[in-house]
């Protein structure tokens, strides 16, 4: 379903860190899968996968060796950005721990895009999202677990053991929550859009300061199949600036500050509705709720004059971000000069969309905390919790746990709270009451 495929398509499973084992067929054939709350299908490589190298590096399902196999044969395809998993549907029993889900439809993948899954440490993916985003309208494993009466409560929960060495990773619990894995009570928020485990989220704070962008509300998805936290560039840039993360210098952003900075500031100070400012200065058009790009391609590059008069999608977006950044600075009673200097600095810290940002490992202790407002409660992440270390000793590198993802309205602005967040906060997926709960993980 193309309309619903975008989030799944953007997933970077390569960074996923937590895997579990399931069995398919009788006797059970074992597969290592990502338990992914951001998708809803189960797929594993098929023994009929001949032309994808990735299949030769992973376990493959052999239907001929299962006495409970049920032929289906309908073709299936899931898009993942760099290509797609394709194959056909089959049915068989699926073993999850001691439970056996009978007659589960799943995808036998006969083609996997080369680089994406070749190096992957997992064989397949077990989606724990809603049926609404299930490719082929197949009933997800989780629904059959509930339908077949295999669990007491229609709830599952994740505990990621962040402090573990490679090997011991945590636990997924079907049927409830394990009180040993969290402290205090969970804060629950309702699922706002069935499909993903999506809910409404409030402001994001850096240290004690509001970033403003989500003060009026943002959508968020609790996604166990994503490693990092992805959010709007406007906020990630501010985080990057505060933690000294590497970024991309945007000439378009700098051009907006140089040419329109004073004008934007003046409009903010004269109480102009912020969402209308970028259209009023001529960088966007106004669609009734916010500025949208005029849609003219930019001709700006290092050797050309930004004042040539042609504006780009990027300048509209940069203007919209500048408005948010300036609002925050005005709230802090900063002078006009220092505001423009600060925005200019931010223009040098723009994250590459869906990319990584490096930080100085020696500075981690002095970085601010970043907090998310969920259900009127604040969920804080300390720097040692949102900075990931790759490698050991002198070869160690540190990368930010935040990455940029700009999803336009009406679906966005959107945050994807991946393992970095779910590692700190034990997460309950309450299917019966359609809500998601968070409590500090132990």
């Amino acid at each position: 379903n193309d309309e619903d495929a975008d989030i799944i398509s953007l997933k970077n499973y390569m960074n996923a860190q937590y895997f579990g084992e399931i069995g398919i067929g009788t006797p059970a054939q074992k597969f290592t899968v990502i338990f992914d709350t951001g998708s809803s299908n189960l797929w594993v490589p098929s023994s009929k996968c001949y032309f994808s190298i990735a299949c030769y590096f992973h376990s493959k399902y052999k239907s001929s060796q299962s006495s409970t196999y049920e032929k289906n044969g309908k073709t299936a395809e899931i898009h993942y950005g760099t290509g797609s998993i394709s194959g056909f549907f089959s049915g068989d029993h699926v073993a999850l721990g001691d439970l056996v889900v009978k007659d589960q439809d799943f995808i036998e993948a006969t083609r996997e895009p080369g680089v994406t899954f070749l190096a992957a440490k997992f064989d397949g993916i077990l989606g724990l999202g809603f049926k609404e985003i299930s490719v082929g309208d197949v009933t997800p494993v989780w629904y059959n677990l509930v339908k077949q009466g295999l669990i007491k409560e229609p709830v599952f929960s994740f505990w990621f053991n962040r402090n573990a060495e490679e090997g011991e990773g945590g636990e997924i619990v079907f049927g409830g929550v394990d009180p040993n894995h969290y402290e205090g009570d969970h804060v629950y928020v309702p699922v706002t859009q069935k499909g993903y485990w999506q809910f409404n989220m409030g402001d994001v704070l850096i240290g004690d300061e509001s970033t403003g962008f989500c003060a009026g509300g943002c959508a968020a998805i609790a996604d166990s199949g994503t490693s990092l936290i992805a959010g709007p560039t406007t906020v990630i840039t501010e985080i990057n600036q505060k933690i000294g993360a590497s970024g991309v210098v945007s000439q378009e952003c700098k051009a907006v500050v140089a040419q329109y900075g004073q004008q934007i500031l003046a409009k903010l100070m004269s109480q102009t509705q912020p969402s209308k400012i970028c259209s009023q200065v001529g960088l966007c058009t106004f669609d009734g709720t916010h500025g949208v790009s005029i849609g003219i391609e930019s001709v700006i590059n290092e050797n050309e004059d930004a004042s040539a008069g042609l504006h780009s999608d990027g300048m509209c977006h940069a203007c919209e971000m500048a408005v948010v950044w300036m609002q925050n600075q005005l709230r802090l009673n900063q002078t006009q000069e220092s505001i423009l200097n600060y925005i200019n600095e931010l223009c040098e810290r723009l994250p590459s969309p869906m990319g990584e940002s490096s930080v100085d490992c020696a500075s981690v202790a002095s970085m601010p905390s970043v907090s998310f407002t969920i259900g009127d409660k604040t969920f804080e992440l300390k720097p040692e919790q949102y900075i990931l270390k790759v490698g050991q000793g002198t070869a160690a590198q540190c990368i930010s746990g935040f990455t940029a993802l700009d999803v336009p309205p009406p679906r966005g602005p959107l945050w994807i709270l991946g393992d970095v967040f779910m590692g700190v906060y034990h997460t309950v997926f309450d299917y019966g009451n359609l809500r998601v709960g968070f409590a500090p993980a132990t």
Partner: protein
Amino acid sequence: SAAADGLIRIGLRKKALDENSRLAGRLLEKEGKALMGPRYGLRGGLES
């Protein structure tokens, strides 16, 4: 495994972030942006 409390627990294994997966992730990022950008209206125009 099933326990007396009726909960079904499945242990998870953890993989360290390594250079291979980061490299593959970066390739994915580059290819993905090119493919997905126009299709889903993602904003990538700020990269100069």
